[in-house]
């Protein structure tokens, strides 16, 4: 396999010879992969959030601001009498503000006590049968004095639709970037081949097979792919870690870390990088090597 070692060395040399184009190829491929990875991480996390909140069967019912505490407590009975409501729990507005204060820090809510409390009285409602969720919510809303109903389920639904929107968007961007990176890689390789056309003419004159002529250029493409995959994995690790940490401060959920799902992603990145590299180089080589009639004497 001594000639294979030689060919690999030639592949590396080509890469350095065309630094600028190689960097451009790597840059585009990295953006493509990081975007794909981010979309994957987003989808994984959103579905994990959706799963975890979907399980907690608690709906929050907010009452009108102007109700007194006594009126508010009476509303609880009305809500409990609705079909499918199995349990209601009254939440004092003082309790609510206390919960916010704990989550978000003292200063902001320091003065919001007693009559200055802007929050309404509310109830936590538990339902018997979640499949009747929508009609039950509609009935709760009919109760006089109920301002709004919110549940994690709605948040979950919004998140799911947001994530599918982002996924579709990024799918198109990824597709465009994939085409661009193929194009740039094949151009990089074509430039390398052009600058090596003299050597190639000599190789052909002494009887090198097309496969032999090809190998260094394919290796160049594969190196571009592998380097891009490595950079993308690093970037994605740093990015998702930073984003999850900052989101966690606002919304505390058991987020899926990059390290928990990294092996399939790494595998896919490496495969994608190598495939794009091979495919990109094959395109340009094919066009070059089928150029007949002038491969030796008229290079």
């Amino acid at each position: 396999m001594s000639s294979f070692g030689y060919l690999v060395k030639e592949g590396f040399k080509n890469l350095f010879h065309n630094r600028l184009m190689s960097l451009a190829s790597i840059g585009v491929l990295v953006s493509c992969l990081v975007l794909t990875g981010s979309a994957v991480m987003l989808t994984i996390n959103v579905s994990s959030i959706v799963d975890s909140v979907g399980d907690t069967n608690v709906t929050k019912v907010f009452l009108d601001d102007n109700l007194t505490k006594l009126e508010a407590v009476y509303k609880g009975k009305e809500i409990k009498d609705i079909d499918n409501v199995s349990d209601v729990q009254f939440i004092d507005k003082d309790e609510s503000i206390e919960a916010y204060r704990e989550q978000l820090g003292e200063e902001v809510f320091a003065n919001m006590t007693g009559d200055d409390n802007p929050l309404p009285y509310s109830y936590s409602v538990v339902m018997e049968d979640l499949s009747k969720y929508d009609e039950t919510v509609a009935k709760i809303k009919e109760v006089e004095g109920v301002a709004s109903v919110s549940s994690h389920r709605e948040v979950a639904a919004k998140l799911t639709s947001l994530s599918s929107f982002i996924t579709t968007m990024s799918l198109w961007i990824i597709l465009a970037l994939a085409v661009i990176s193929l194009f740039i890689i094949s151009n990089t390789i074509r430039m390398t081949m052009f600058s090596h056309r003299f050597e190639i003419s000599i190789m052909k004159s002494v009887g090198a097979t097309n496969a032999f002529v090809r190998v260094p250029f394919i290796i160049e493409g594969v190196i571009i792919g592998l380097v891009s995959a490595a950079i993308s994995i690093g970037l994605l690790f740093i990015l998702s870690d930073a984003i999850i940490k900052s989101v966690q401060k606002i919304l505390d959920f058991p987020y899926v870390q990059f390290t928990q799902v990294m092996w399939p992603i790494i595998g896919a990145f490496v495969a994608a990088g190598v495939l794009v590299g091979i495919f990109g180089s094959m395109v340009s080589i094919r066009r070059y090597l089928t150029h007949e009639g002038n491969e030796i004497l008229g290079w």
Partner: protein
Amino acid sequence: MIEFKNVSKVYESNGVHALDHVSLKIDKGEFVFIVGASGAGKSTFLKLIMREETPTSGQIIVNDMHLENMKRRKVPYLRRTMGIVFQDFRLISKMTVYENVAFAMRCVGKKNDSIKKRVPYILELVGLADKADDHPSELSGGEQQRVSLARALVNNPEMIIADEPTGNIDPEMSYEIIELLSEINKRGTTVLVVTHEHELVKSFGKRVIAIDDGRVVSDSDDDKFVAI
């Protein structure tokens, strides 16, 4: 061995009749000069032998292989039976003399061991053993052509094809190069030299085939001359 049977070549792109019903035969072990003015069809003749071009009609047999219907993937194996020497030497400037010659062996997948044995032997043969580590730019034209010849020889071809080998070097050096080719021919390798230097050709007294306007107009080996 080269055999052309009624070979014509018309370039589709410009309609030029480069070769017109050429028939000739060069046997194994012969030394042949091909002479003719530029545009006479010498280049086309060489391109057909190397299977860079295919004939429009007729048959070409080189080293027992039929070229007119040869598959593309077989072409490298045809080329391995011939060593090509160019007018402009075609040496890779960033490689040393040794590496230039070794390159030809790498291209056909030879192992490092055999490269290490074979290259010094060939360099000795062309008289460049002491220049192995020089770069082509440090050599004279004659020396560069000898490197080119060493590269053509290193894979032990049945035939050497030299395209105007003396075109870019001094007249004294030219004799040296033809002398060397003649030496190689004595060891059994067929040699084909394309040139327009009639003086040089005359002084060696070898077989001369003249091409003009796409036809073979004379062949010093009369038995094989088939005029049309």
